């Protein structure tokens, strides 16, 4: 018997993770709010803690948590920051 493949027949692309930074010194951290309730509470706390140890942060926000982040937003974060912390909330 021979069957037809019902899948997309795609091999998932695998990418190496970037090396984790050894320290946050001289790094700029993106704080990404995905627009879920109380995500801002979490990020506000992180921002103040990072600020207290002299780490620069920038805030970003997805238009809605229901869709993946727009390409432009991802590009902006990559070009402006070294790391990103995302608040998934819930």
């Amino acid at each position: 018997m021979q069957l037809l493949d019902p899948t997309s027949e795609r091999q998932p692309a695998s990418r190496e993770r970037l090396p984790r930074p050894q320290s946050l010194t001289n790094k700029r951290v993106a704080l990404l709010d995905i627009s879920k309730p109380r995500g801002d509470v979490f990020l506000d706390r992180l921002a103040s803690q990072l600020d207290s140890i002299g780490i620069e942060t920038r805030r970003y926000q997805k238009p809605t948590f229901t869709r993946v982040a727009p390409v432009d937003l991802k590009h902006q974060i990559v070009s402006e920051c070294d790391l990103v912390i995302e608040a998934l909330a819930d």
Partner: protein
Amino acid sequence: MLQNTARLQSLIPVDFTGFIAVVKRDCATCRLIEPVLREMSERLNLLLYSQDAPAFPESIVNVRDDTELELSYRHEIEIVPTLIRCHAGAETDRLVGWQRDEWRSLTEMPALGGGLPVFSPGCGSKSVDPGMPDKLAFKFGDTPLQAQRIDLAAQQDEHELAFERGWSDGLPVVPPTEERVLKMLGGTTRSPTEIIGIIPPDNVPCTIEKVAINAVMAGCKPEYLPVVLAAVEAVCRDEFCMHGVLATTYFAGPIIIVNGPIRERIGMNWGNNVLGQGNRANSTIGRALQLVIRNVGGGRPGGVDRAALGQPGKLGFCIPEREHDSYWESLSVERGFSPGDSTVTLFAGGGVHPIADQKSRVPESLMLSLARSISTVHHPKIYGAADALLIISPEHMRVFREAGWGKARFRDELSKHLTIDGSDVLAGREGIAEGMPARFAEKRLNKFRSDGLLIVHAGGSAGMWSAIISGWAASGPNGSIPVTVPIKS
């Protein structure tokens, strides 16, 4: 018309000039014209093919065996006897059945069939017996299908393979053989290679062929395929936000509501147990959509599908509206289509919540009763978030019909009773932390955003029950909006 010239050259001589006749013993006309065929074989260059008995007609030598039906298939023989004249390998003329004058004219044999009737109709070719065209298309390799083939070893169980490869939603699937998929594709006039949409969550271009493969696995009949295709198109629309519907921890999955003449044509059930099991079309169309999302889109529970609880309708949830005796315009008419249009409406919904009211006999009472139940959808203290799908049963609709309440009036009255002061449902009130944020304290709130309540008539004739289905908690432009698309043939 020759379907495959290169292949035919191995069946008949290259640059063949002469006649091809196709017959079968099981045809009275073929037996009748045996003397004609014999005379032609003696005087003309005749290739005589028999579909069912290689020796038939016995009085003629060198009858060719077409019991495999390859020549019949490739020459698209529909009736036997068929007489074809060829010149330099190409067909120039064709006759079907026995028509004495035409056979005489084509063969330039003026006395042919002298003792036979003037006319005798032929019989159906074995190559067009029920189911045979699909079998032959598969057998002789004229397939437009591009999917990767997976060969099974002799002892391998095809049902277990489907489970092992992760193709199944947990129930057995019909093994997608090429023959079955070709038959499924007969349900549409669209090309198997057409890209119907980009399927989330992996955002993979999906061909009609891939939808057909998954429709076979779901148990669909070919005539359901246009409905499945329309449903796939609808979930691919950005406003439906299928990626989010899949990724949410909430209960939502795509629910398909079918309107228009196709419901009856494919035998859907809009009556007793409409939301339950037992009807093939209802059960398999929704399942086919879910299998497309699973297998083509890569959306699987525990992967991108993060539902905390899910709901049984995520196996597949497809219902038709009960239109023939409805007092209200149908869902698709409300959404801008005409009653003659067949459509699917996709709604991102959770499970079925029953509404009982066996005592109301006037519309005011029943409307208030429904409003009270509907106000609890998603959460009694959350307003304007989740859309909802209300399914009104025939006995409940009777109350509105007898009082002359049209759908617009019902909607209007219901909306009034689903509007409250925001201060009544603020977070923390009544000792319940859940509720609306403080900024809504001074506002009047409606349970649903405008266009957020879909209303459909369905169910069996007896029983004063209706049903409400919660939409996704993130309904609306920032999440999922119901989508209606026409069903194409």
